[in-house]
């Protein structure tokens, strides 16, 4: 059989069309790649166009055989699993060949890498439900995240329910896409570049209150940075209010010389409450 690599547009629909193509042409692709990531090799390539109808047919076929597999397929596509397309392709192929029996065994060799990646995705989304930090800009809530996996579709339901009557957005700096929500409608759209505005006085005030609360609740006698790191790996800290540098707590238009009253350097709680009013950071 001639070796062929499929190229697709990077969307889930596009990927599903690659599966469709493989069955239509009765061939097994050597690899399935996003067009942007493809580098010329000796293999022949074929660009598979996105076709919503084809994509639907594939997904429906999978869902009829096993709703669980359809869920894994959609979630698996959001993961950062290296060559996830190929793994997912193999799962679908096995499902069509053998039926859904193997799906009950998480140790199955085709299934295991996908399950592992999806667990990581779910875990990351679960953590981010808590770790996302919003700021308010004239009534709109905005947040930025840096996740490994494309978690926005998994965060959508949660935050839309939490902020049903608000307008909000979450920007994913890594995958350059944003979730927008207003008037009961949510959309996820690609967004190349985004920069958060400096906070107003009230916003800066809340940031500071939160940081102070965070620093105060730790019990010095129980200081345990390793445990904290296990539950909240450092890669999340970059977008969390409590770990930001002093400038983050300064309101725009406020004289920048004015020092921000910090608890001592984020170290375990204050033995005595800090003195009132502005004091030196750290």
């Amino acid at each position: 059989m001639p070796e062929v690599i499929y190229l697709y547009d990077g969307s889930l629909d596009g990927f599903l069309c690659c599966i469709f193509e493989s069955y239509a042409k009765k061939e097994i692709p050597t690899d399935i790649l996003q067009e942007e990531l493809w580098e010329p090799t000796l293999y022949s390539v074929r660009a598979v166009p996105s076709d919503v109808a084809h994509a639907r047919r594939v997904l429906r076929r999978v869902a009829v055989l096993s709703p669980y597999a359809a869920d894994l397929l959609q979630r698996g596509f959001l993961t950062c699993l290296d060559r996830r397309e190929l793994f997912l392709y193999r799962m679908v192929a096995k499902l069509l060949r053998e039926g859904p029996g193997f799906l009950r065994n998480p140790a199955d060799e085709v299934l295991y890498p996908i399950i592992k990646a999806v667990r990581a995705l779910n875990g990351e989304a679960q953590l981010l439900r808590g770790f996302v930090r919003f700021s308010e800009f004239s009534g709109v809530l905005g947040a930025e995240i840096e996740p490994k996996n494309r978690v926005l579709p998994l965060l959508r339901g949660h935050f839309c329910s939490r902020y049903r009557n608000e307008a909000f957005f979450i920007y994913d700096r890594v995958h350059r896409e944003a979730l927008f929500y207003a008037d009961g409608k949510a959309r996820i759209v690609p967004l190349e570049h985004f920069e958060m505005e400096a906070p107003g006085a009230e916003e800066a005030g809340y940031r500071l209150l939160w940081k102070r609360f965070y620093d105060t609740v730790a019990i010095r006698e129980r200081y345990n940075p390793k445990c904290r790191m296990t539950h909240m790996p450092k890669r999340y800290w970059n977008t969390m209010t409590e770990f930001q540098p002093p400038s983050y707590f300064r309101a725009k238009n406020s004289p920048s010389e004015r020092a921000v009253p910090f608890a001592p350097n984020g170290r375990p709680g204050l033995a005595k409450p800090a003195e009132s009013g502005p004091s030196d950071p750290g």
Partner: protein
Amino acid sequence: MDLLEKLTILSDAAKYDAACTSSGARRGFREGMIGDASSSLAGCCHTFSSDGRCVTLLKVLLTNCCVYDCKYCVNRRSNDTRRAMFSPEELAELTIGFYRRNYIEGLFLSSGVFRSPDETTELMIKALRILRETYRFNGYIHAKAIPGTSPELVEQLGFLADRLSVNIELPSEAGLRLLAPDKSRQAILSPMRQIQNGRAQNREELAKYRHAPRFAPAGQSTQLIVGATGDSDLQILRLTQGLYDRYRLKRVFFSAYVPVVENALLPARDTKPPLLREHRLYQADWLLRFYGFRAEELLDEGAPDFNPLVDPKCSWALAHLDFFPVEVNTADYETLLRVPGIGVTSARRILSARRTGRLRPEDLKKLGVVLKRARYFLTASGKLAPGGRISGEALARTLIVAEAPGAADPPMRQLSLFDSVPQGA
């Protein structure tokens, strides 16, 4: 005094209290209200403080002014400390501001006793009213019922909060008399009973009228301090079990005593908080709630305290070696749960996976079984997992080594090795 300073004082004063999960409230979005309490189901952690504890709620005291004099408490009236008080309006606004920024899942409100239990509770009620009615806050609220509060006020509090708790404080009546002379076991247990009955009654009303207001829908919990008195782990665990059985509590929290005051009746100021003991109690509590263990299986008068070197489940397994090995292909769910290294999730996965074929030792890791503990206690298709055959004293030693490295545990108490490890094979 500005808000930042108040927050500092009143969160500092509240932090030694352990209970901070928000699980158990199931309430989706409601029209015209802010927030929901559905994600709380999983006990959503919004951050972890530098001591590694999950922060879910804005946990503060309404005030740290207190007319009581509990010996173990920083807020007792005889202690010289700075006092502050939130106005109900301030507290409500702060909670909403934090909630909207996704800093927190809700509010955990406790308080020192300002003038009298009733007067304090009235202020708490006022704050919660503003939050629920003015700000239309639909998120999670956990409120402390102060012992000695009149039943009508406890009832009002219960209709505003998702969860109520009454701290049992100390494991024994004697301890209470000594250290918290203003509180009696009776004053603690009667609101607990009231909350339990209130919930039962409310369930009946809800069955009749779907829109009846809900009384503490997430149930009640309590907290007790470990290590301030001489009570044994067995006493504590029996009490815990009793509270689950008789008062239908959702959770019992343990809080390692941090010596914040000098008092002849209490451990010295430089005593380290008994974190490992607290950890063991939580492990045992887990076994009571999810693994079908009873307190009497884990401890007895002969060995009334947990082994600091191995966790309670391993301890039980070492004392019941004739129960093992368990064959993962045939054992039922309850039996699987008794194997060290198999948890609720991995036991379920085993049940599911073995329907597709016989499990081999090499499958177990993928199912989430912790082999470094489990391998000594199970077989798969009659085969032991690699390195699985040792017994007796060597086994105990191996398990101790398996737990020690990388464990989130603090340094352990110095003990002569194998103090209370059963030596039998």
